């Protein structure tokens, strides 16, 4: 397939896969048909067939109904709607395109998700007379969920509003405001009239006030901001190639990153490591290969690998877990039931899996989170998934190929669900819980408080402990029952076997998370002061307790200031090379993207900060007593 790398002519033009979204009446098929027509990409015999069909099925009288170029299946023609994903191929001097055309109705969310899963850009249509509709928001949301990064917003049927610039700019502004938190890298609004071709391949004289690109130009410039080759190396083993006793190689397509001969790689499953001896292809051995290439790797040392294993660099491994938290899109009329066993396919691995908890489903028109016990066709939910055996996975937002999965019905063999992993969960699965009569609600009632975790994260020396100490004193004075867990103290006790490697830091936080959760179970307010440098582990702790029981406080003090303070002389030692893996110096700190509270460690005094924490906490308590 002409993926980004192995296309026949990729040296000349890059390939862009895009999806078109809009409802039946927005003129989506017309736009795509017109785009092909205007770009002179429709053959005469195809045009003759359209002319013949226009008289039979068309809705435009004597005019060519260009939508008929795309609506392929007989049944669809009769209903006048596209019911599946249709792919169209075209190219310009600058770029090759694969356009996926899908229907817009809510009942076709699954088709749209399918098309979006391989798209780098989306063309979203809006009817100029109607403006943003619930379904426009739904399309944008699904594109965002599937990781589409570039959006071209076509405000169509501009002829019916006399090419009124105010109408266009209002709709463009509405969309921009709506899409602010959807994570699109770029949004290009364009006023168009698909039926007559205005601003599709040429700038229309009917919109002299519009200075931006025509749709085709925008497509030629879209996407390509993210390079899979720049990410950590992931190689899901597809097949063990052993034609003779002399050759044993591992075949697959590089999911992300790059590899060179001589690189040490490890199996994410076993941790076994070996050096790459050869990168074998039909044409010749390669010194180097990157994302998208299909290669066979051989190793200098013996290594045990099978289909489903993932090869990765020793210092940058995927999670190897049997539980994940993920978005799940349901694609079949028979509802998803938590606890039911499905077949899960992720990378090249296949394993039985079940949804252990459906946290909520999403109203895809409003983004509201709704309580749910099951997911129906076209519904999207957020859930925990337990696999029968562990898999090597990454968050979907970081590496799509190792963060995506499908679920298959064991009986019908249908593909029933599509998932996007948010993060791996490290939990015991085979230990069944005892239920006891006295639980968290009873204990917290006895203490007359709602338990929670106040999680302080920030660099060493940022002031976490100082602030937490003030907060605890205040809470204590107010009669609350508290417990404080501090990084240094914990490392003297329960975690005295752990160092500061990434793996140990992860384990450190996992244990702290478990301990904090036990205290929450006992009804206490737990103040936790840990550098906790990785977003993923903080998310993991968050997932251990209820949504409103985790309050993240980011003590945001610049590195330079922490180093200046250096209360324990650690920065000096780290700079002198006496401490390895020191956060901020030789180990990364991933700042929280959306903490409940951000404290300005430079501009704010510790007591002012403590007061703000108390306010936040009291607010949360008040909210939970009004809605227990």
């Amino acid at each position, binding site marked *: 397939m002409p993926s980004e790398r192995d296309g026949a002519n990729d040296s000349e033009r890059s390939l862009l896969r895009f999806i078109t979204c809009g409802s039946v009446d927005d003129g989506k098929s017309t736009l795509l048909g017109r785009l092909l027509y205007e770009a002179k990409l429709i053959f005469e015999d195809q045009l003759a067939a359209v002319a013949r069909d226009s008289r039979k099925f068309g809705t435009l009288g004597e005019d060519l109904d260009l939508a008929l170029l795309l609506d*392929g299946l007989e049944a669809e023609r009769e209903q006048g709607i596209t*019911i599946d*994903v249709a792919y169209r191929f075209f190219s310009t001097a600058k770029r090759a395109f694969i356009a996926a055309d899908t229907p817009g109705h809510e009942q076709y969310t699954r088709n749209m998700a*399918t098309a979006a899963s391989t798209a780098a850009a989306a063309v979203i249509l809006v009817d100029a007379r109607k403006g943003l509709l619930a379904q426009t928001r739904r399309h944008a949301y699904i594109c965002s969920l599937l990781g589409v990064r570039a959006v071209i917003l076509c405000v169509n049927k501009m002829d019916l509003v006399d090419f009124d610039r105010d109408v266009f700019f209002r709709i463009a502004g509405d969309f921009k405001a709506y899409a602010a938190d959807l994570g699109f890298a770029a949004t290009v609004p364009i006023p168009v009239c698909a039926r007559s071709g205005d601003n599709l391949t040429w700038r229309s004289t009917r919109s002299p006030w519009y200075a931006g690109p025509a749709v085709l130009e925008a497509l030629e410039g879209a996407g390509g901001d993210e390079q899979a080759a720049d990410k950590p190396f992931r190689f899901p083993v597809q097949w063990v190639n052993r034609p003779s006793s002399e050759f044993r190689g591992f075949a697959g397509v590089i999911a992300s990153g790059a590899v060179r001969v001589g690189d040490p790689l490890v199996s994410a499953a076993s941790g076994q490591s070996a050096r790459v001896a050869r990168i074998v292809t039909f044409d010749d051995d390669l010194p180097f290969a990157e994302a998208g290439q299909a290669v066979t790797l051989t190793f200098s040392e013996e290594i045990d690998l099978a289909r489903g294993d993932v090869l990765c660099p020793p210092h940058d491994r995927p999670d190897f877990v049997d539980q994940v938290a993920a978005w799940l899109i349901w694609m079949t009329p028979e509802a998803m039931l938590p606890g039911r066993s499905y077949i899960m396919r992720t990378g090249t691995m296949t394993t039985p899996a079940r949804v252990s908890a459906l946290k909520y489903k999403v109203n895809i028109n409003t983004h509201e989170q709704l309580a749910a016990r099951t997911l129906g066709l076209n519904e999207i939910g957020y859930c925990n998934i337990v696999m029968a055996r562990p898999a090597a996975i990454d968050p979907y937002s970081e590496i799509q190929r190792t963060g995506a999965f499908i679920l298959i019905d064991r009986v019908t063999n249908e593909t029933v669900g599509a998932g996007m992993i948010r993060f791996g969960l490290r939990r015991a699965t085979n230990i069944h819980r005892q239920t006891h009569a006295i639980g968290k609600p009873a204990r917290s009632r006895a203490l007359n408080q709602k338990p929670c975790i106040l999680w302080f994260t920030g660099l060493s020396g940022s002031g976490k402990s100082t602030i937490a100490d003030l907060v605890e004193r205040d809470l204590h004075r107010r009669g609350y029952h508290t417990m404080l867990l501090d990084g240094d103290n914990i490392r003297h006790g329960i975690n005295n076997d752990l160092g500061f490697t990434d793996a140990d830091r992860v384990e450190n936080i996992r244990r702290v998370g478990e301990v904090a959760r036990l205290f929450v179970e006992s009804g206490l307010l737990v103040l936790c002061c840990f550098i906790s440098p990785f977003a993923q582990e903080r998310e993991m702790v968050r997932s251990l307790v209820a949504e409103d029981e985790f309050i993240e406080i980011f003590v945001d003090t610049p590195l330079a200031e922490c180093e200046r303070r250096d209360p324990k002389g650690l920065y000096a030692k780290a700079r002198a090379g006496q401490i390895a893996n020191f956060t901020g110096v030789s180990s990364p700190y991933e700042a929280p993207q959306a903490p409940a509270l951000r404290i300005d460690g430079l501009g704010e005094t510790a007591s002012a900060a403590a007061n703000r924490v108390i306010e936040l906490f009291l607010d949360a308590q008040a909210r939970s007593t009004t809605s227990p």
Partner: protein
Amino acid sequence: MLHVARKAFWPAPPPFPFLHIATGWDFSAAITYRDCIAKALGLDLIVYTNEEGARRGVNPIASGSVLHAQVMSTEGLKQALSRGGYDAAFAGARRDEEKSRAKERIFSFRTREHTWDPRNQRPELWNLYNTRVAPGESIRVFPISNWTEFDIWSYLRAEEIPVVPLYFSARRQVVTRKDMLVMVDDDRLPVDPGETRELMVRFRTLGCYPLTAGMESSARNVDEIIVEMLGSSQSERHGRLIDHDEAASMERKKREGYF
């Protein structure tokens, strides 16, 4: 397709046999090419013909294109697949060829009777293909589904892959049938005296010779074909007479089991 398969499994050979459904009316040059390549590469080649259809005298000239394609291609394929008990068959069909193929999956499922239900196809997300089938069911797999005709020729050029010479233009004996140029490949094609002309003709696709139209062209090598294609105003399957029998005829044939 063969080249892609060899690359995919290299240095091992492709771990499956190769099947040709011979209708008895293939271009003779295509058969020569097939046998040559199979021998040179040591392929496990299976050739199957619907003998019962041949015995009943079904042929593209007397029986008409619809019946011939149905019996010799579609039925022949179904018989060969059932006989071999294959759970999957690869083919080189592409989405850019025809509208109903534009909606075809890469992994396309067939019932025990080899029929296709376009309304009930499995969604294909990312590169995660669901390959599970019940006993008796099978999969048609189209690995180069997303290639275009242009990609094919660019690939042939880049990889220096030999092709059947009929793809290149040469002086060939042709007659006109339904406004299309049909090559006189052997003496089974009824020809009026003096009807035959010699023209520079090439083929963009190779089916049964009486049902495959050639185009006048001067393109004698891959480079010239690419140049010509960029200026072409006809689609590739324009030369397949069987597609024009009625609208949506490809979709109907596919439902019945045609590749």
